[in-house]
């Protein structure tokens, strides 16, 4: 047991590891409920305005959506490998490689998201006074797009926070903080990243795939 890894309030490394695991999972439960409010609104308005929701969903760029989903799933794999590498006490270059790949994929995801946002902006599909949509009931479609931006925007914000966390993990890896005995921080960061992935796993079909094409 090395003392430098053990915070003063804990007795053992096992206790500390359990605390960090429980802490992040409790935090993820709060995150689930944070998005829960959005899922509630989505469910109610989907039931109230089914036609407008299906038609609006068809205006999503399914190609970019699929690409982004694949990117995010891949980033989850690389994240898992980064954590694996750190936990197994492999060379720090290996861990860093997987971390950078994960962050790179995250940035590509955000870039593509940005392109999609730009398209929506050009097409006047951003809620507000400029929102124009003739073919579908305008107000109902605006609610769909309002929820689209709120959900994907908050998801993107979580990705940005995740990228920040991963940068810190990169720094800690570089300084050789992680050993076979101690890898809590990167383990926790990985769980957060996977969670953001799981969120997208639900957002993607709810927003892109509800209308038959």
């Amino acid at each position: 047991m090395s003392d430098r890894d053990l915070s003063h309030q804990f007795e053992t490394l096992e206790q500390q590891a359990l605390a960090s695991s429980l802490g992040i999972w409790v935090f993820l439960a709060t995150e689930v409920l944070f998005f829960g409010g959005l899922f509630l609104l989505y469910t109610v308005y989907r039931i109230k305005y089914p036609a407008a929701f299906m038609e609006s969903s068809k205006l999503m760029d399914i190609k970019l959506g699929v690409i982004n989903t694949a990117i995010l799933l891949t980033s989850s794999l690389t994240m898992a490998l980064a954590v694996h590498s750190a936990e197994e006490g492999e060379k720090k270059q290996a861990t860093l490689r997987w971390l950078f790949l994960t962050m790179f994929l995250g940035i590509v995801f955000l870039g593509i998201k940005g392109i999609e946002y730009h398209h929506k902006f050009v097409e006047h599909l951003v809620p507000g006074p400029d929102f124009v949509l003739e073919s579908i009931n305008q107000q109902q479609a605006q609610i769909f797009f309002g929820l689209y931006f709120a959900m994907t925007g908050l998801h993107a914000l979580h990705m940005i926070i995740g990228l920040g966390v991963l940068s810190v993990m990169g720094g800690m890896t570089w300084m050789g903080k992680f050993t076979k005995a101690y890898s809590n921080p990167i383990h926790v960061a990985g769980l957060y990243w996977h969670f953001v992935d799981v969120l997208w796993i639900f957002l993607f079909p709810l927003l892109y795939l509800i209308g038959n094409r």
Partner: protein
Amino acid sequence: MTTSAQAKNYITNDYHVWSWVATRDHKRIALMYLVAITSFFFLGGLAALAMRLQLLTPHTELVQAETYNKLFTLHGVTMVFFFLIPGIPAVLGNFLLPLMLGSRDLAFPRLNLASFYVYLLGASFTLAAAVLGGVDTGWTFYTPYSSTYSNTHVITMGIGIFITGFSSILTGLNFIVTTHTMRAPGLTWFRLPLFVWALYATSLIIVLGTPVIAVTLLLLILERGFHMGIFDPALGGDPLLFQHLFWFYSHPAVYIMVLPSMGVVSELIPCFARKRIFGYNFIAFSSLAIAILGFFVWGHHMFISGQSLYAGLIFSFLSFLVAIPSAVKVFNWTATLYKGRIYLRTPMLYALGFIGLFTIGGLTGIMLACLGLDAHVHDTYFIIAHFHYIMVGGTIMAYLGGIHFWWPKISGKLYPEFWGKLSAMIVFVGFNLTFFPQFILGYLGMPRRISTYPPEFQVFNVMSTAGATILGVGYLMPFIYLIWSLRYGKDAGPNPWNATGLEWTTASPPPTENFAEVPTVSEEAYDYRSRPEIGNV
């Protein structure tokens, strides 16, 4: 060396400003919270006093209607989000949880400090909104008034409350993990002090409820900024969805306020009755039951809001169920007195006052859960009286009781007992004079949130204002003599009440690391009878 290392406590440990600003010691963070929360308590109290003065006569022109609306919003927001919700958990909980568990600190000391600064950040947004001109939506922020019609600083205040929510979440998360992982050897779940159970149940609500209010306020801000229509019927939205989301948190939030105070009372009664608490398991589990059932009843705030009759029936039924665990607690506390050795010290007076007022608050709550009666008294002063019996008569009584009980531990000093008892009695009398007439006003039909009223309601309003003045004096007194005691009070010693519990086994004030060595527990909680060495109060 002028002072030996052992004599240093968490306050004298280091005097540099930085040692406070960047502290990770839960006890110092608790003290910083105490200062912040007390400030908000007096701010909210001043707003309340101004309102009571306005209501002294039917058409007082002390403040304009607009100002009055901003006053009750300020009163509600500061009291709910900045005093009652963080109150007991962030001050007493922060200070005591590691001490009661026999650990050196919370599981995540840095998060704990972060939660305090997040609280301050949220508080500064809220104060900025108040200073810039105030908000007039009420603390409930109902749409579409808040999203479209109000032209006050709703967004700024929304951001403030949104941010403060994360402060609660961090505290709740920290408490949950700490309780699971940091208990001293031998300290099993059923040997825990009941205050810890109450904090745990509270944290459960905080962690599962607060994110929902956070996202709700965020959506309100977006709606106000972009008019997406999600809460605005003029744009195809449904304003009742806002109410559902709001009360999904804000009803359980009532239990965030009252559960910790029940925990405090469960500590005070056995100590001053010198007896193990009656029905430990039932009190412990009733906390969890309240935390969980509390999430199923939010629709009782919406019986006359246009919610469906069917939903009204379901929510009414479930609301009655949550009354049961509260009743069980009251009976168990009362039964604890039986065959006790009772000392009527200041904390005990507060605790007994709590039981009485909470009983009235709880029973009038049953009236509000009852559909046919709620349809008459909803949104009247009856509601105001009811929830002030719970939050002021309940939470603040217990908070003050707890502050008095643990003040010797926190400060190392004893307060003057005579003034303590006097203030407890003044608070009790002032409270009842303020809020009991409001039950009558409410049944007569006086609506809440009004600055002028029909003249026949005046007598009861005058009584209420008079009571509020007395109550204000009652609250000022502890503020003065507790500060006085810091300098002039007698030294308390480690255990002035001869109480059980690990927090009393260490010095007062405790050293930074709490315990010289990790204690081992082999007794049940509140084991006053079978350990004669403990002695009397």
